């Protein structure tokens, strides 16, 4: 029981790191809250579902398609929305409302296009039979999803710490104005980070039918809250802290589901509030409290 909760928590934790990663990257670089994050995730899930059903395409292949499509979509979307938003008086607050509007548009289009019903992909597509780890058995699809999540996190690490673009991205994260003053093309760096954020959301979405059971056009809202919980526990604005947050969240979720299952839904909200109140600025490197 205990070992199972712990291991399943790790598996889900890795997946939840991926779920939160894109949101945190966007927040870290642009200081805007992408409230449509969960909806891009939903689009990734539906992409995987349709490509599998129409062309029998393996979801692993869909990951690369999602990366290309949503990465390419993110750049024009950035130029369309963000520079204009940043000229307003309070961009951080208005971004919540702007991206809420975007999430409504996406959700409405998805409902019109896909219908409101639940969609799922059989788990055997990602690998057959249960996998035994340390005496516990898990579906193979979980292990594949967790491994893919870990790879995606490593990819983001490589991008941020081993490439020149990542170096510039971190400069913008630390101080936008100074980065601008040293001649960094802040808009270009931000646009690429925005595209990467959307692509990460869509990749997480590809695995959503396996990890979360099914996909519906309205799934975005819940996922947003979970993503927020994950990235706030880790460290807002620091994408790699997300891994810590994801694993902590995954493990505590599994423990709640094992021992207090009827109250498990309460967990993300309580964790979110507690962490914000107890350690609001400690890990964040940024003032989030007034007076």
């Amino acid at each position, binding site marked *: 029981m205990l070992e199972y909760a712990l291991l399943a928590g790790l598996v889900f934790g890795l997946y939840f790191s991926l779920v939160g990663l894109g949101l945190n990257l966007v927040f870290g670089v642009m200081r805007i809250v992408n409230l449509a994050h969960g909806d891009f995730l939903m689009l990734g899930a539906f992409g995987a579902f349709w490509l599998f059903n129409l062309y029998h395409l393996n979801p692993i292949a869909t990951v690369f398609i999602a990366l290309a499509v949503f990465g390419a979509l993110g750049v024009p979307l950035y130029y369309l929305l963000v520079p204009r938003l940043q000229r307003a008086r309070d961009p*951080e607050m208005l*971004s919540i*409302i702007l991206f*809420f509007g975007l999430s409504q548009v996406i959700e409405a289009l998805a409902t019109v296009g896909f219908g409101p019903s639940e969609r799922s992909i059989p788990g055997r597509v990602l690998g057959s039979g249960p996998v035994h780890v340390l005496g516990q058995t898990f579906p193979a699809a979980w292990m594949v999803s967790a491994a893919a999540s870990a790879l995606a996190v490593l990819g983001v690490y490589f991008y941020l710490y081993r490439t020149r673009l990542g170096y510039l991205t971190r400069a913008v994260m630390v101080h936008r104005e100074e980065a601008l003053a040293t001649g960094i093309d802040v808009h270009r760096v931000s646009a690429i980070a925005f595209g990467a954020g959307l692509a990460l959301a869509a990749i997480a979405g590809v695995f959503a039918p396996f990890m979360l059971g099914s996909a519906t056009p309205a799934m975005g809202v819940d996922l947003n809250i979970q993503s927020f919980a994950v990235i706030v526990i880790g460290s807002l604005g620091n994408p790699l802290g997300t891994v810590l947050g994801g694993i902590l969240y995954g493990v505590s979720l599994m423990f709640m589901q094992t021992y207090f299952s009827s109250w498990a839904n309460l967990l993300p909200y309580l964790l979110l*509030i507690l962490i914000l109140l107890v350690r609001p600025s400690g890990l964040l490197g940024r003032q989030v409290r007034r007076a």
Partner: protein
Amino acid sequence: MPRVLRHTLLVVVPVTLAAALLPLGYSNQLLLFNFVVFLTLAQGVNVIYGFTGYLPFGYVGFFGAGAYGFSLAVIHLHMAPLAALGVGALAAIVLGLLLTPLLRLSGAYFAIANLAAALAVYQVVSNPNLTEITMGPYGISLSGVYHPQLSYAIAVAVMAATLGLAVYLRNSRFGLALQAIREDAVSAAMAGIDVVRARTVAWLLSALVAGLIGGVFAWYVSVFYPDTVFSADFSIFAIVFALFGGVATVSGPVLGVLILYGIYNAIGITTPQYFQLIYGLLIMGLVLFLPNGLVSLFKRWGIDVP
């Protein structure tokens, strides 16, 4: 003419009279009631977001607390509806007090934490383990106290009081202090404003407004489920209506409700997904092109709007 009187005559009196008299000639009282509810909620959001600068993304928490405070007082304590409204208001105030530490957070952090708090309250209220106390997910039925005429009248009174509150904030030293906190809390403190006290009062006032109208809502509809009164739509609609018209004014939220909720009732009920689409596009256009709301257009033309 003093500005308070002018604002009262221009906005509070006509809106209240219209709400009070329209049921005599128009039979869809439920529609009018919903307008009254949203007029009140939009002004409640105006108090805490428009004047003070905190975006209450989980505003519905207070509405739901009010509705459940009212209903549980009627069910368990067999209170008269008017007294039970006091319990509903009290429930919202208590929730507001519990959440005051959130006011230490700023910007998006506050909005997210507030949203999480509202969802947490919803999860507790609708938890099947608490069915004996809150009726859990099975909902509330108050057919014993159902009284549409009286509850409608009370709703109009709550709305009028809330509009009066907005007029007061628009024209008083306290309202100015709140706006100073919104612009720059540190400078406001330097200017001698007790920031913590002022923002707490604004927060509790806005909670009180939502709690009262939530209680009246429960009374008026008398049969509802937890996800009816904790629906995120209430927060979002109230925020968007207020923003659309223009916050930190009296007339802005009123205009926003009349226009947007009017559109909602024209197309939203028959084809919700198309309304959601138009609504989303409208919100995006609003934030990008008119972030200060409709009334900012009038201000640009040099007209002093209430």
